[in-house]
């Protein structure tokens, strides 16, 4: 039996297969009839890509029809190339190149010859199409923008490239796919599912109706409509304020983590990246390496956070119990921590306790409390790592885990970083070597969205929601745990009150006292961040970045934002003014201080930005 079993199985299998072949090939004649010059044309029915709305239901993006000229190389017959080229306004070389490419891709599968014709071009071509065997027209939809703003948020769509086609079989030559921003991040929701129609042809290549009565056909499923968290009006206003400046504005709703605005300047109109003009426009934007309009400064720009970071320094010191809010520190135009080492400060009253310390942004105060927080531990390594733990709980030094298609980590230096930098254990280093951290200078860096999130965490007294751009899909509010569950910082709730009061005093009597808004209690913090660039191989200091973080109202905050103006000099000069206007616009809807608005609209920093490229010596901080 053991010897025979396999013989039996093999022979049985052979008999079954021969029986099956007999059934398929001889007994059942329907297959033969089906394949009588069976030829099936596959047509794709492209669904409407989902529309995008802003948080107030304003329509931002819809679709417009566009037409691709497709070719199936093996169905080509000789044709009048001259006429064809003149209709489509292309050169003969271009046509030949495209046809060759299509033939290499596949002689049987359609390829795109000319993508994205307009309606008019299509109308003209449509009449002549019958002359050109092997070509046909595929309808698709392109994006139609109802806004001139938020191009960096929305992203754009473009034809899939060969790499993507290979990676995901859903996409075919000529298909469109989201390449950046919301379009990329929510591609699967927006694109829908294309329908497939199989048309049976007879042996004269004529359509004779759906293959198998449409048994294998599928209907297209339309893409889902998205509602994003952006407030288009606020976004537009912010972009207007940012004209002739470089930098970013990120505004969040601290109670939900929704991104109200995400502005980068300079920017471009989204409609520039639609259809056939996308490619040259993109190239132009991409190669503008000086103002870099495609670089989303709000999420990718890493800058030293500057003085706004002092709020965190204060919170950590309170949490570690190394200071209480009544203790005052002297400041003699700075803080001396070595024979020749001094952290400078501007002129103000002295000594200061915590609340006026924040209001006046006194460097000496924060240097003192910072060193105490670190020196509490036996070694500076332990001290720094404990400090890093607190800082990172505010979402700094790592990707936020948001749903934007790009981002940067920023940097929060830990003990490993300093050990490497100072070549430990060969050389020792002490807490004073890291003292710039106290005031947000030195190695530490953060993106504007990280700072906005940090501000939101302060506004909420100890927790934040991960910033996100998606609000609803097809009208259904999102239910993504990462975005709906608060993330707690390592600082206890009670420590926030003095810091928030200090940030409020910034407006009442401190560095931003000229920027108050009637009836709104704002809390904010100015920042003036030193920065350097390399000109002809020499490290050169540029005019300081102007930074401002704020939230309002003080109790029950509705908006938390960061304004970052490259080379805008001191914090309240540009960033503070813009932040104040943005808050008023969002909360009140109108601007009462038109003189302030005019000042921002009429002032340009272009001259400042030209300095490093002028090739001549220049002065900074003027």
């Amino acid at each position, binding site marked *: 039996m*053991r*010897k025979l*079993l*396999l*013989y039996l*199985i*093999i*022979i049985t*299998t*052979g008999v*079954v*297969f*021969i029986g*099956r*072949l*007999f059934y*398929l*090939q*001889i007994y*059942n004649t*329907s*297959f*033969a009839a*089906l*394949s*009588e*010059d*069976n*030829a*099936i044309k596959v047509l794709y029915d492209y669904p409407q890509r989902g529309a995008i709305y802003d948080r107030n239901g304003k329509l931002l993006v819809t679709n417009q029809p566009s037409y691709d000229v497709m070719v199936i190389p*093996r169905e080509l017959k000789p044709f009048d190339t001259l006429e064809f080229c003149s209709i489509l306004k292309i050169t003969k070389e271009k046509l030949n190149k495209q046809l060759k490419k299509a033939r290499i891709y596949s*002689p*049987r599968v359609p390829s795109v010859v000319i993508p994205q014709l307009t309606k008019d071009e299509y109308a003209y071509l449509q009449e002549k199409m019958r002359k050109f065997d092997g070509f046909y027209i595929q309808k698709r939809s392109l994006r139609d923008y109802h806004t001139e703003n938020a191009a960096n948020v929305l992203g754009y769509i473009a034809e899939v490239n060969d790499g993507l086609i290979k990676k995901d079989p859903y996409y075919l030559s000529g298909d469109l796919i989201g390449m950046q921003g919301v379009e990329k991040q929510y591609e699967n929701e927006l694109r829908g599912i294309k329908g*497939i129609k*199989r048309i049976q042809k007879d042996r004269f290549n004529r359509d004779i109706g759906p293959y198998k009565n449409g*048994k*294998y*056909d*599928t209907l297209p499923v339309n893409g889902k409509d998205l509602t994003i968290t952006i407030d288009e009006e606020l976004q537009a206003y912010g972009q207007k304020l940012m004209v002739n400046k470089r930098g970013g504005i990120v505004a969040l709703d601290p109670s939900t983590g929704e991104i109200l605005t995400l502005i980068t300047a300079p920017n471009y109109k989204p409609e520039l990246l639609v259809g056939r003009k996308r490619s040259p426009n993109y190239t132009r934007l991409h190669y503008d390496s000086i103002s870099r309009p495609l670089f989303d400064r709000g999420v990718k720009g890493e800058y030293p956070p500057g003085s706004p970071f002092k709020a965190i320094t204060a919170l950590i010191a309170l949490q570690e119990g190394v200071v209480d809010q009544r203790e005052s520190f002297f400041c003699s135009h700075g803080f001396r921590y070595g024979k020749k080492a001094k952290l400078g400060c501007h002129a103000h009253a002295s000594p200061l306790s915590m609340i006026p310390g924040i209001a006046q942004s006194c460097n000496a105060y924060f240097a003192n409390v910072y060193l105490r927080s670190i020196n509490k531990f036996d070694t500076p390594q332990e001290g720094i790592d404990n400090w890093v733990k607190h800082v990172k709980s505010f979402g700094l030094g790592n990707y936020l885990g948001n749903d934007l298609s790009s981002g940067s980590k920023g940097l929060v230096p830990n003990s490993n970083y300093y050990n490497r930098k100072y070549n430990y254990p060969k050389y020792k280093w002490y807490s004073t070597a890291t003292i710039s951290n106290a005031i947000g200078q030195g190695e530490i860096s953060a993106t504007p969205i990280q700072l906005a999130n940090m501000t939101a965490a302060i506004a909420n007294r100890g927790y934040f929601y991960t910033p996100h751009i998606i609000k609803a899909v097809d009208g259904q509010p999102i239910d993504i745990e990462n975005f709906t569950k608060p993330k707690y910082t390592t600082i206890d709730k009670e420590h926030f009150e003095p810091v928030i009061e200090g940030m409020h005093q910034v407006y009442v009597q401190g560095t931003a006292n000229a920027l108050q808004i009637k009836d709104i209690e704002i809390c904010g913090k100015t920042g003036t961040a030193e920065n350097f660039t390399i000109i002809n191989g020499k490290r050169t200091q540029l005019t300081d970045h102007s930074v401002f973080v704020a939230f309002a109202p003080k109790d029950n905050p509705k908006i938390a934002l960061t304004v970052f103006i490259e080379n805008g000099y001191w914090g309240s000069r540009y960033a503070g003014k813009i932040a104040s206007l943005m808050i008023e616009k969002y909360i009140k809807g109108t601007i009462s201080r038109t003189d302030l608005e005019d000042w921002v609209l009429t002032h340009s920093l272009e001259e400042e930005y030209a300095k490093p490229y002028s090739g001549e010596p220049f002065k900074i901080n003027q």
Partner: protein
Amino acid sequence: MSRSTVGTIDWLTVLLFLLLVGFGWLNIYSASYGDEQFSITDLSKPYIKQLYWIGLSVVIIVITQAIETKFYERFAGLIYVISLVSLLGLFLFGKNVNGATSWYSFGPVGLQPSEFAKAATALAIAKFLSDMQTNINRINHQLRAFLIIALPALFIIPQPDPGSALVYAAFFFPLYREGLAAMYLIIGASAAALFILTLLFSPLWVVLGIALAMTLLLIKNRKQKPKYSRYLLAIIVITGFCFSVNYIFNNVFEQRHRDRFNIVLGKEVDSRGIGYNTNQSQIAIGSGGWVGKGWKEGTQTKGGFVPEQHTDYIFSTVGEEWGFLGATTVVILFVGLLIRLLYLAERQKTQFSRVYGYSVVGILFIHFVINVGMVTGLLPTVGIPLPFFSYGGSGLWGFTLLLFIFIKLDANRVNEW
């Protein structure tokens, strides 16, 4: 190669091999040529590449015949370990083709180590079973044999290439031949039956049905003092199995796997076009009639309607262009080869050679059953090649190596001891 060895080579097997490879190539040519001129240097065409693969497999044949028989036995373990390492290496250096990381890429040539792992595993299991110490009816030896077989399969599954891993079921045949208890056969067959029943009906109904049947059996046999605890245990095991099958099917399988099963089981009306491949392949075969449309005349084949026709679906080209006669001939060639090999395996004087021979038969048989079953619409879609027939260098070499090691072992049987 000594003269005596050449004289003892089983030329019938070699002839069957040559017929299959040659006929296979004709069909690959038909399935993949376009309108172009035949040019031996045009490496972009599968049928040209396959010619080179066939040429290189001659080199493999010569090498396998030149190596001493003892080598295979002595180094079986080492070869096995090397092939395991090459499978593991894929996770680090593998190249992703069509979503599966099954390939090493050497410039234009790709190598698929899973195709060679079969031969290596066959050698290893032959070596293990032929060891004097091994007793296949001892549990820990069964476990070890199982481990030898399962390891390569486990490394292949996550590539992901579950089809190639399925082939390792073939090693059941040599184990059974060498005395593995028939109980395993019964358990295996029952598990397969339960699997299909569970998918057809809900697990609850299956369990209830079996419990009812068992209860009836118990009542009928109650006078013989049945062992109730065993019945209970059986019910528990079956319940666990059915529900875990249900769970795995719904939660571990991907939708495309589920679709393939459901379509073959007739559970799901194929309205989404998932069975398109198989449907097209059946049309191609069905349209062949008695004698087919003639070589290179297949309209389905030329129309390019059957996806992957020159690889996994090559048998549909045979059916269309050579008709019932051609397709039946191929089936008979395969059955003939398998029976001849089985006969050769039985006449071996050493256990090593016999186990290896049975492994070869098992592996070729599983490939044959699954592939032809899939192409003719009898089995769910599982992408594995038809031995010697399908396009692909690694596949052809793997099967050639597997077969000709056995031919060498067989040729040398008289010289041993």
